[in-house]
């Protein structure tokens, strides 16, 4: 049963990601990415990461993708030539990565790895969100604060960048 769900999610994720790259219209690309985000959230649910599934839908599908669609519609793009002249380089990199993945898979086999060596094991009896909150506010407190600083810097940077024209001097 789990495998049925996994293969459904995996097939849709792979197809949607190919569609993101291959679609003519940027809006179709963004909508394919929306489908992919929802199915990644479903995959997270099957992996017992319910909190991340909710955050995936709220942040990615709710905030990030709406921002993309807003910009796509704001810029009012025409259809232009899709692919780059550097496609031979893309083919080389892609083929190299595929060969590398095949070799690694063939070397390591399909075995599952051994058991946990980590320090913070999941606490039984609490919810997924509770466990993440415990770890986030104790072990990873400093990275958490740094993440909030990153968000602040990104917010200020986005406002400054989008406010002025590129050629202008930056006094306000």
């Amino acid at each position: 049963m789990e495998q049925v769900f996994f293969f459904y999610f995996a097939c849709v994720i792979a197809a949607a990601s190919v569609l993101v790259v291959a679609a003519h219209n940027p809006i179709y690309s963004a909508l394919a990415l929306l489908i992919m985000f929802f199915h990644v959230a479903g995959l997270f649910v099957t992996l017992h990461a319910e909190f991340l599934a909710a955050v995936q839908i709220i942040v990615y599908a709710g905030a990030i993708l709406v921002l993309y669609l807003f910009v796509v519609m704001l810029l009012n793009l025409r259809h232009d030539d899709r692919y780059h002249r550097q496609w031979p380089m893309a083919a080389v990199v892609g083929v190299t990565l595929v060969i590398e993945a095949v070799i690694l898979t063939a070397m390591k086999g399909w075995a599952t790895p051994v058991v946990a060596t980590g320090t913070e094991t999941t606490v039984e009896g609490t919810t997924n969100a509770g466990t993440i909150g415990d770890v986030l506010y104790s072990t990873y407190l400093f990275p958490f604060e740094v993440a909030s600083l990153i968000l602040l810097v990104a917010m200020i940077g986005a406002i400054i960048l989008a406010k002025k024209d590129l050629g202008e001097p930056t006094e306000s």
Partner: protein
Amino acid sequence: MTVPLSYYLVLSGIVFLTGVIGVLLRRNIIIILLSVELMLNATNINFVAFSQYLHNVAGQVFVFFALTVAAAEVAVGLAIIIALYRAKSTINIDEFQLLKW
């Protein structure tokens, strides 16, 4: 009847490879940023799968941070795209070759 970890790695590899090809191949900056999102999601799948199989919640915390960085990247990236569009009235990356050697 559980799903082996390798399946998740293969899926994540496929998605990441699609993202790499999209970054190298497409000319539209917005599609390039979407491909970067694809790659970030591939790593997120990896993190959560390992977190589940190693019974270690640290992987999910890292996905949380990756999500934060993705949000910041989108905000700044789209602001840069809007600034570029104001300056040159196009977002085809063949037009932006000032730094190309």
